[in-house]
């Protein structure tokens, strides 16, 4: 067990190190100049060169990377070129917003997709199954930013049921979370459905039914518990995809989270901030995967030995 944890952590470090290398190279390969972005379009060449040397951008890339890693090992992610904020502070201030948004969305979509999945597996091929399938397909195909704008327009701007944007309380999280949840629910409902159908055909379910156990106990105890295991794995992997959706929803609803920070730092070519956000997101995905791994072992003791 300990061995397994250590091995996972070792790989996590390798993955994060790889992330720094790739991000660093990509950010520096962009044919644009962060100093120029900082100094503004009106600045003259001399000003730009002076600021460049002050920021240390005139050193060779290897030296810059070495400096970055050196600082990183001391827990220093650097300072934003644009706002002068410490990168780690900027991330930590915004993380709770993104975290609540993501968690609310996960909660909502699990709340919707599990019953839908079970129901459609139970009534496979009937009208309700077909309807859910079609609605799911439509929902999966919707672009997040479009759906976000539509919900914002009809449920907030027109009717005033929700705040249109910004963050001044928990009600401001609902609409963005619903947006994310709607897009993903369809997918998870199908996932639960497929696993459920498979499980319901298993021998032990037939035995349980033969023993006369009530149908809902069969469905939820024998069926769902087994069907949900692969779903939890996918959920861990989906944390990465969720970050992508968060960028759009946060921007549409003006939530001060990591997604907005990521987008703005890219527009500003704020190198330390881009590196920091990417590294942090990578760390989150790695952590989510490790957590899922252990939750998985916990739910399904058969996994532990492998």
């Amino acid at each position, binding site marked *: 067990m300990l061995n397994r944890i250590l091995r996972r952590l070792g790989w996590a470090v390798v993955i994060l190190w790889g992330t720094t290398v790739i991000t660093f190279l990509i950010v520096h390969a962009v044919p644009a100049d962060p100093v120029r972005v900082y100094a503004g379009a009106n600045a003259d060449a001399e000003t730009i060169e002076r600021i460049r040397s002050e920021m240390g951008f005139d050193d060779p890339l290897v030296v810059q990377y070495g400096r970055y890693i050196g600082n990183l090992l001391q827990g220093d992610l650097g300072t934003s070129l644009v706002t002068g904020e410490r990168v780690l502070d900027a991330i930590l201030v915004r993380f709770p917003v993104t975290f609540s948004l993501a968690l609310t969305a996960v*909660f909502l979509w699990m709340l919707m997709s599990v019953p839908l999945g079970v129901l459609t597996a139970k009534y496979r091929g009937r009208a309700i199954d077909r309807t859910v399938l079609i609605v799911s397909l439509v929902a999966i195909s919707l672009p997040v930013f479009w759906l976000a*704008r539509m919900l914002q327009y009809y449920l907030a701007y027109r009717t005033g049921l929700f705040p*249109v944007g910004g963050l001044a309380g928990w009600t401001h999280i609902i609409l963005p979370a619903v947006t994310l949840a709607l897009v993903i629910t369809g997918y998870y409902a199908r996932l639960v459905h497929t696993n459920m159908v498979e499980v319901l055909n298993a021998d032990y379910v037939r035995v349980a039914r033969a023993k006369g156990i009530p149908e809902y106990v069969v469905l939820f105890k024998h069926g769902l518990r087994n069907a949900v295991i692969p779903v939890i794995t996918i959920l861990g992997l989906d944390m990465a995809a969720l970050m992508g959706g968060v960028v759009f929803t946060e921007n549409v609803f003006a939530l001060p989270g990591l997604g907005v920070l990521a987008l703005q730092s890219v527009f500003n070519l704020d190198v330390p901030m881009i590196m920091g956000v990417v590294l942090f997101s990578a760390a989150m995905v790695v952590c989510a995967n490790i957590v899922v791994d252990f939750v998985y072992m916990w739910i399904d003791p058969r996994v532990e030995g492998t």
Partner: protein
Amino acid sequence: MVACGSYLRKRIYRWRIYNVSTNPRCGILVPLWLAILFLSASCGGDGRLERLHPEENVLRIAVPSDPRSLDPAIAYDVVTWPLVRTLFHGLVDYDDDLNLVPWHARSWTISEDGRTITFKLRQDIRFSNGRPITSEDFAYSLQRILNPAVKSPGQGFYRNIAGARAFQDGSADRVSGLRTPDLETLEIELVQPDLPFLYCIAMPFAYAVPREEVERHGDEFGRYPVGSGPFTLARWQRGTGLRLEKNPGYYRADDIRLEAIDLMVGGDETLHMMMFERGELDIASVTSTGIPDADFIRVMNDPVLSKRVAHQPLNAIQYLSMNTELPPFDNVNVRRAVNHAIDRKRIVGLISDRGIPARGVLPPGMPGFNEALTGYDHDPEKARTLLEEAGFSEGFTTELMVTAQSGIDSKIGQAVQQDLAEVGITVEIRPVTGPTRIEATGRRGAVPFATFGWYQDYPDPSNFLDVLLNGNRITEVHSTNVAFYDNERVNALLNEASSSTDQGHRLALYQEAERLIVDDAPWVFLYYPQMYLLRQPWLKGLKLNPVWPIRYELMWVEP
């Protein structure tokens, strides 16, 4: 009691059956999940900007992203400057006719040779920390811009101060040209006479900052600014918003009618427009474009909303730059042909008439604007003749670099593509990000044809003609002369004008230079943009001018 107990037992029993007892590990997950959810949701959001319930006399506005810094030495954009102006103040300011008027300086004199400016300062103004402001604070603030460690984007405007270069290179520990004979006198000695230098002094870079506060906060001064303006920063929560409150110690506090300014950070112009229409914001958008593109026509046709629109021609120009060093644009007839081929009126129509078709470089609000300049009319026939003369009767193919995120750029791009196709020129549009475009176009010999916008730093022709079109300004990288236009006669006129101390003579020289430039056509002169602001009926005191389109300190909210 008994019944209740047995009911509970039953419930617990059932719960055990279905969850906990059969599945102890899964059972804890749900409450744990809910607990985390609740905790994270309650510690997450901390907006605390009262947007839905307006406070009395508090201005509510929104911007897409945080100001990068409220440090006057660092801030350099049209959204942040009006905020810097509410927190700090400077030696001189503009009146509504763009004349310089005293502010902290009671008066100023310029020496015979034009190289020394002497300011006499007021003695009755204090920083918001209570300390009186003296000439030494202004000398310190100016020297600070030139300090390389501060990384001020405005340092180029002050390099003409004597000793600035030595200070920047580290061979002097102070700028010798900044002198304070006594606490109410500031002398600035220049390397060469420079009339527009007074405009540089009016720029926010040169506003007074208190040394003790700067040293206390170091690089974070832009986060915790302390100045002498009509407002002070009460709080700033990054990514969420900031609040400025009236400075009771301001020397003209009685003239300031707003109690506070609430600035929401985040969201795009579409969201801001929705919030405005729901009554949550007092101005729809305070960015340079004003009313969002998508809403503009609806707003202008709306009988109610259109009455709340204020507009102001900006001292700015939208142009296409043709790289005069790269074929085929090294041929003057090709550049003239392109100018004749493009229909400016149609382009202005595409942006809902939010611009004035350009006939030259200088916008109408700029001193030295030449009414008599005819520019290039839309004449495809003449364009074809000119192309033939240049040896391009078959036309040619070129690439126009535009900014990908800009709606205006894509409209211009398509219009240019169609217009030039009429005369046989094939244009391929190359959308790139803003930073990439700036980087590529400033590099010598790299980009033949690109869209550009220029917004003035100060209202003097030199800020357009000298900065953008003087051949002596060409550099291998980061050139601001993106057409790489180099005409000796024009350079000589511009250089003479820069060092002349006679304003009338200078303007005549600039007009002559502009006439030659228009004739050489290094740009396609497109249009001069206008700003449109949409305000709520209760917002008063919105006075626009080309230098300071937005002045929050003049506004108030009428209940």
